[in-house]
């Protein structure tokens, strides 16, 4: 299974991968499940496992947490189950690459919009399993453009996850036409203007978002491109962001990644396996708000530009003071190891870690999933780069907002960063099985 392939001829029929089993959201390895016809012809059953191991070399490598031996990142090439209680792409281990897209809804026809959500769901299930969209990228009618754009042919699923979200404007601008009046969750607030924000409207907001994470950038871009194409006429891309080098991890036991300032980021992030913390801080519970969102979450996305050049001219001492951790090990001030419990009062009052810490913010805890970005240079020769910050939480008012209030007011890091894009989305629960679809509970009222 899981070989990315053209499926003309078998599409929508007996290909068992089409009906991905209700997964327990663990990563399935390449070679499990029923092999597709092409895989059987091409590799032979026994060869699959070998092929999977070898293919890992094509994608990013990561060091294992135990030492220097290099292994393929996250058993690279594997597929992440699409169906489950929660959407994949939140608590699942963070992949190496991102393509995030925000859409404006163009249609005013409820049925048409629902049909699109269903079609997107079908496509997402195929894409995350490593299959081509529709009837594939070749082999169809010569006179028509193929259903799939084709650039992911031959690539592994690469742990692709696709996660959909609904923005406040979906409920405000389109609520009446779509019968969503009164369905906007109280916690889906418009973010306040924080001091220092310099938001570009063209890079902010959106009625919908799709977050594509993958270990292979081509796989992530392919997914967004095909969803955008399916959506033409019903939705239009408002803005999008590519990301690389995850800046925080949901597997804190592994080595903590670094952001573009060279500091480890996400040391104390919520672990994707910490069910208790996830239930407390990330997943929307039965008593939190609308029923349709139970098992979902809220996402805040911020494009944070870094003044890379001035940062790089800043002395090491100042850099470490600003963060409140040392640059090499990542240990908090006065501590020896990265994971040693920080003593906040040892840090400067405006140190980033001190101000961001849950204890400073009444316990506010968020699950971060951000990525570094570099969009070339800005015309003045400065690197247009920074952090594309993604944070999941159970309630934006208790998660991102208090933390950002405290940071925006006095974070020493503010001299080197600027928030230039912003969006917030309600993330519906997972797609349960092949009959379910993104947003069903919201649109049908049936949980």
């Amino acid at each position, binding site marked *: 299974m899981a070989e990315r392939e053209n499926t003309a001829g078998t599409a929508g029929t007996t290909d068992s991968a089409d009906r991905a089993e209700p997964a327990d959201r663990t990563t399935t390895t390449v070679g499990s499940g029923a092999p597709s016809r092409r895989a059987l012809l091409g590799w032979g059953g026994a060869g699959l496992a070998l092929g999977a191991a070898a293919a890992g070399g094509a994608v990013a490598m990561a060091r294992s947490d135990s030492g220097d031996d290099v292994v393929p990142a996250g058993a690279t090439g594997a597929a992440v189950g699409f169906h489950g209680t929660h959407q994949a792409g939140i608590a699942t281990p963070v992949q190496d690459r991102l393509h995030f897209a925000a859409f404006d809804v*163009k249609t005013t026809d409820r049925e048409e919009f629902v049909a699109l959500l269903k079609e997107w769901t079908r496509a997402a299930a195929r894409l995350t399993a490593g299959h081509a969209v529709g009837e594939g990228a070749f082999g169809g009618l010569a*006179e*028509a*453009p193929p259903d799939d754009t084709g650039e992911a042919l031959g690539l592994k699923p690469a742990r692709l996850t696709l996660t959909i979200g609904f923005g406040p404007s979906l409920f405000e601008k389109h609520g009446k036409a779509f019968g969503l009046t009164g369905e906007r969750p109280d916690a889906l607030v418009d973010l306040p203007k924080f001091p220092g924000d310099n938001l570009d409207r*063209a890079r902010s907001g959106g009625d919908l978002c799709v977050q594509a994470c993958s270990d292979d950038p081509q796989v992530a871009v392919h997914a967004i491109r095909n969803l955008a*194409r399916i959506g*033409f*006429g*019903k939705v*239009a891309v408002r803005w999008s962001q590519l990301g690389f080098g995850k800046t925080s991890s949901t597997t804190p036991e592994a080595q903590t990644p670094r952001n573009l300032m060279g500091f480890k980021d996400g040391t104390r992030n919520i672990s994707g396996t910490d069910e208790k913390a996830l239930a407390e801080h990330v997943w929307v519970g039965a008593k939190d708000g609308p029923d349709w969102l139970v098992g979902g979450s809220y996402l805040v996305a911020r494009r944070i530009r870094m003044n890379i050049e001035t940062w790089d001219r800043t002395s090491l001492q100042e850099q470490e003071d600003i963060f409140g951790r040392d640059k090499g090990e990542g240990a908090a001030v006065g501590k020896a190891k990265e994971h040693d419990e920080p003593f906040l009062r040892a840090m400067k009052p405006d140190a980033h870690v001190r101000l961001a810490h849950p204890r400073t913010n009444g316990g506010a805890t968020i699950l971060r999933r951000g990525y570094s970005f570099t969009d070339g240079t800005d015309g003045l020769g400065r690197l247009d780069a920074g952090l594309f910050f993604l944070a999941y939480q159970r309630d934006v008012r208790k998660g991102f907002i208090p933390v950002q209030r405290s940071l925006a007011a006095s974070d020493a890091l503010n001299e080197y960063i600027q928030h230039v894009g912003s969006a917030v989305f309600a993330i519906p629960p997972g797609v349960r099985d092949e009959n379910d679809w993104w947003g069903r509970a919201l649109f049908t009222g049936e949980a």
Partner: protein
Amino acid sequence: MRRARLTALTAVTTAAALAAVTGCTEKSKAGDDAVKVTASDNKCEVSKKEFPAGHVELAVENKGSKVTEVYILFPDDRIVTERENIGPGTKQNLTAEVKAGAYRIACVPGMKGKGIRQDVRATGGGKLAERDPRLDKAVAEYRAYSQAQADETLPKVKVFTDAVRKGDLVAAKKAYAPSRIGWERTEPVAESFGDIDPKVDVREDGLEEGQDVEKDWTGWHRLERALWQDKKIGQREKDLATRLDKDLTDWQKRVGKAEITPTSMANGAKELLDEVATGKVTGEEERYSHTDLVDFKANVEGAEKAYALLRPVAAENDPALAKELDKQFAALDKLLDKHREDKGGDATDGPYAFVSYDTVGKADRKELQDGVNALAEPLSKLAAAVVKKSK
């Protein structure tokens, strides 16, 4: 235009199984096997309606009082071969290599209109696949549309070029955009000839390597630059105006011979939208005059015409697609109307006026682009809907 991009009209001809034939005319004496064509002012008689495929010879005699012309046509009105200027009382021969299949012989007394037609058939091996007659009709009507656009464009071009020759900057500017409408509506047909487009519609950046901007750049956009950027008309511009007349007359004469098939019509419609998406929405096409929205509208109209002609077959094969295309054409028309200065009135009734594209902001351009994507994506599926067998 974007040079060398719009090639579908020539590329997909094989799909129609109308194999290319070479036509030629000669004055030599007709053989005994020749098909005798007796033309008069109201008749076009042929001596036989069936003849073997291969080398076919027509022996034409004009017994009428008007100058006539005689054609061998495919069922879709594409010209196999023709002979013009056959004077009253004279004889002419024309020959062609034809494959087996249906044809028409047409005499056109006075050399105007569709003429008087006779159905004929070439028999023997190498049979051509029979095509849905509705599609032949669509192609024939689209050819007639393309011809009419060319015919109507030439006088408008002359208004423009006359103004240039007179050195009248104001009048030339006014006549510029209207002179381009017919061309923009049928651009894929014009571009299928390959050699006309680079002469009349190339932009400075479309010149080939080694071509000199001042010496080799000709056509509408070179004059556009003179009028709006240089703001002066010199002898060079006057010469270029005359050359534009000549090149477009060549276009007008050749439209009838263009390779047009149902799929090339469908893909041509999509390509007109591609033109909009890559050149008009960005403001690149009319970078000096900012009349991009006039071209935009004309491109959409041309695409809509091709679609309307193919619609009966497409709607039978893919009703959902036809419904979506109806909706998206209407939506894009509505979106364009937002930028129209002359409210009301059909564009076919006269020149239409749009706001200068440099006054259209980024958000509005994005909206136009979204509208183009919304139409062009389903339009890319029209060709398949036209060729696929109905269930």
